[in-house]
């Protein structure tokens, strides 16, 4: 249907253009005037039918102008030029519709100019046309990422409906991000505003109990609200051509189940591959085909779990505004890469660490306006949250242009806490991060209600590492601080190093592994008897025996492997019986049983069908 509309619409516009050229030469050509009128009228009806309200409004105004021209008998040059502009704008609107993108043609503006050229329209009617046109534009638009649409009517006896509308917006903003309000404040200020307001609310992950009744109750709390209708919005992702209106909402649990099943399917395939003899040519061929399809299926399931970062990013403006307000700071927030897609499970994990970093930046990094001006900086602090793909990882950077981390201060605090070589460590960004991430080492000069209790950076680092990611710091005195967290795009699948201890296979996220070494080459003495230090490549680090960590008896075999891990507080060498292989694993969450030791972050089934636990390296002593 859309294709037909587009094709016929373009035909009509071509005819209009030809008629306008004729009229430019012969302004009194009656037949051309009639023809344009009919073409525009047809296009108007078609546009309204397919929901192109904005175009319909413009065409309606053009039609009125044509009526006047027809009555007068002659088309003025000015009118002809304007109609040519209208034709161009409509054509680009059709092009945009075909590509599934929002039109940027200035249709609303053209509607107004058309109305201005039609003096038969009384001023009052002109104003209303303008207002209607504006509203149509806004109401015809859907909002990306919106979960709820709230229609509010301000009471007729409200003396200040737009101020009341602002209160409605603010009440709702307290329970969910308000992504858009229509009409906007300027249109509300017009006398012709009909007191109807539409608000689009985003996803509020921190308020899972959000429902229509709660939203309506909250809106009514603003007072002078005559009516409130709440509707669930079909969430729109990136506007995809041809895919609009063909979206299905699926509970994330079902996608989890689907991923689990695909994971099992992959394992079953691997078992099958091993059991089918290579001599059986036909079976091998069939198996290869099935294998390829299973891999494609797995990728398709993983892709279906991808959601844009905007779902969490869109919560930051409010968070930052409130925090900045509470701390009396002026901050400009810049969000980049909110359209980047990540696995659903990762999205939920990203929010808290980023919130932590934002809070730290606002509290400690950014100065007050007075201090900034005194330092020759713009009065407003700048806070940037930038997301980008980095190979198979997503990198999210929180950068401020504040005072930077005070290395001497951090070093002094760390030394006071008994950290050796704190001065040397603090000179280097990565060393500084290690110091900052020391549990309990708060560098805040004063503890505020918002941060500075020393749980910030170490909490973030622990969280990020348990997800198989890493944290990087860059800071310069007086110019600012940037902290980048890198996480795998999908936390449901990860590459693991498989190690053996006492006949069992354990998985270690490969992203946390720095290196592996044969232990006997390092002349390690009795590693199983507890924690000792070892020197590897000139660096002294603790050795932790996985056997004793798991409460298993010491091994008879003195030969083993050391796996060097990037821990929250520096490198640790993990002593294991053997490193066996690397493998892509599907992470399954573990039920936490009766206060069991938090040694493992999850479990998985290996390709040979044996279960394996995934080691949480942050729980190592």
């Amino acid at each position, binding site marked *: 249907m859309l294709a037909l509309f587009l094709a016929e619409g373009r035909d009509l516009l071509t005819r209009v253009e030809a008629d306008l050229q004729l009229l430019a030469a012969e302004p009194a050509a009656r037949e051309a005037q009639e023809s344009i009128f009919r073409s525009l009228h047809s296009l108007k009806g078609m546009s309204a039918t397919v929901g192109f309200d904005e175009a319909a409004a413009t065409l309606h105004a053009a039609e009125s102008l044509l009526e006047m021209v027809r009555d007068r008998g002659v088309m003025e040059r000015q009118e002809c030029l304007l109609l040519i502009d209208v034709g161009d704008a409509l054509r680009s609107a059709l092009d945009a519709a075909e590509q599934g993108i929002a039109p940027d043609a200035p249709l609303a503006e053209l509607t107004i100019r058309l109305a201005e050229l039609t003096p038969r329209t009384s001023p009052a009617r002109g104003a209303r046309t303008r207002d209607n046109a504006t509203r149509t534009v806004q109401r015809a638009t859907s909002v990306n990422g919106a979960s709820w649409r709230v229609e509010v009517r301000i009471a007729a006896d409200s003396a*200040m409906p737009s*101020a009341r509308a602002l*209160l409605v917006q*603010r009440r709702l903003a307290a329970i969910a991000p308000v992504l858009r309000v229509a009409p906007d404040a300027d249109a509300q*200020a017009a006398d012709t505003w009909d007191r109807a307001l539409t608000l689009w609310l985003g996803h509020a992950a921190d308020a899972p109990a959000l429902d229509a009744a709660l939203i309506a109750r909250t809106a009514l709390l603003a*007072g002078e609200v005559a009516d409130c209708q709440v509707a669930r919005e079909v969430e729109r992702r990136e506007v995809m051509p041809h895919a609009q209106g063909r979206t299905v909402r699926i509970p994330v649990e079902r996608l989890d189940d689907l991923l689990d099943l695909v994971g099992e399917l992959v394992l079953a395939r691997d078992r099958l591959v091993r059991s089918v003899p290579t001599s059986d040519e036909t079976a091998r061929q069939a198996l290869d085909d099935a294998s390829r399809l299973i891999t494609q299926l797995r990728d398709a399931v993983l892709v279906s779990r991808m959601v844009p970062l905007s779902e969490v990013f869109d919560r930051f403006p409010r968070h930052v505004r409130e925090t900045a*307000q509470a701390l009396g700071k002026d901050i400009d927030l810049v969000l980049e890469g909110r359209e980047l897609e990540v696995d659903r499970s990762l999205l939920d994990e990203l929010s808290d660490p980023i919130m932590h970093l934002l809070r730290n930046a606002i509290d400690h990094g950014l100065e007050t306006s007075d201090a900034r001006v005194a330092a020759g900086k713009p009065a407003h602090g700048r806070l940037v949250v930038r997301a980008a793909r980095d190979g198979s990882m997503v990198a999210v950077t929180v950068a401020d242009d504040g005072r930077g981390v005070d290395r001497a201060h951090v070093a002094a605090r760390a030394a006071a806490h008994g950290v050796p070589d704190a001065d040397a460590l603090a000179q280097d960004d990565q060393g500084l991060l290690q110091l900052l991430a020391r549990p309990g080492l708060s560098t805040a000069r004063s503890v505020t209600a918002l941060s500075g209790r020393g749980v910030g950076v170490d909490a973030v680092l622990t969280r990020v590492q348990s997800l198989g990611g890493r944290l990087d710091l860059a800071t310069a005195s007086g110019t600012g601080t940037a902290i980048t967290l890198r996480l795998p795009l999908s936390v449901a699948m990860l590459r693991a190093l498989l190690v053996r201890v006492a006949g069992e296979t354990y998985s270690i996220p490969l992203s946390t592994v720095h290196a592996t070494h044969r232990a006997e080459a390092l002349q390690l003495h009795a590693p199983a008897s507890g924690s000792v230090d070892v020197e590897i490549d000139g660096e002294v680090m603790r050795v932790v025996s996985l056997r004793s960590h798991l409460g298993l008896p010491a091994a008879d075999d003195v030969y083993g492997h050391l796996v060097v891990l990037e821990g929250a507080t520096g490198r640790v060498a993990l002593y294991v019986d053997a490193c066996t292989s690397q493998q892509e694993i599907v992470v399954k969450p573990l039920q936490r049983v009766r206060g069991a030791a938090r040694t493992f972050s999850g479990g998985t089934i290996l390709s040979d069908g044996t279960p394996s636990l995934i080691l949480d390296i942050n729980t190592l002593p």
Partner: protein
Amino acid sequence: MSHRILVCDDALFMRTLVGDILQQAGFTVCGQAETGAQAVAQYKALKPDLVTMDIVMPDMGGIDAVKAITTWDPNAKVVMCSAMGQQALVNEALQAGASDFVVKPFQPNRVIEAVQRVLG
């Protein structure tokens, strides 16, 4: 214990009117201010549960007073009292941190409703 309210308006008539409305509804008027500067000083001294704030006042206007009060106490609850036709100023006051507003001429029930909404 009834809520304590600070009433700010440069006109004694208005302060009295608002005060009467509030007292009849069972609220306590704990203080009055004639200028924005007085309002800020009184707020810090009295720490009232709520403030009613006129917009146009000499010395320091109501909007600046709202800014000063909400900077000092981000949880401050301020209800603006505005004349007809000052919608832009009311919007500005709401942006500055005011919680609600009532429009003159005051209808007692409107004032009470606004105060109760804000006190939750």
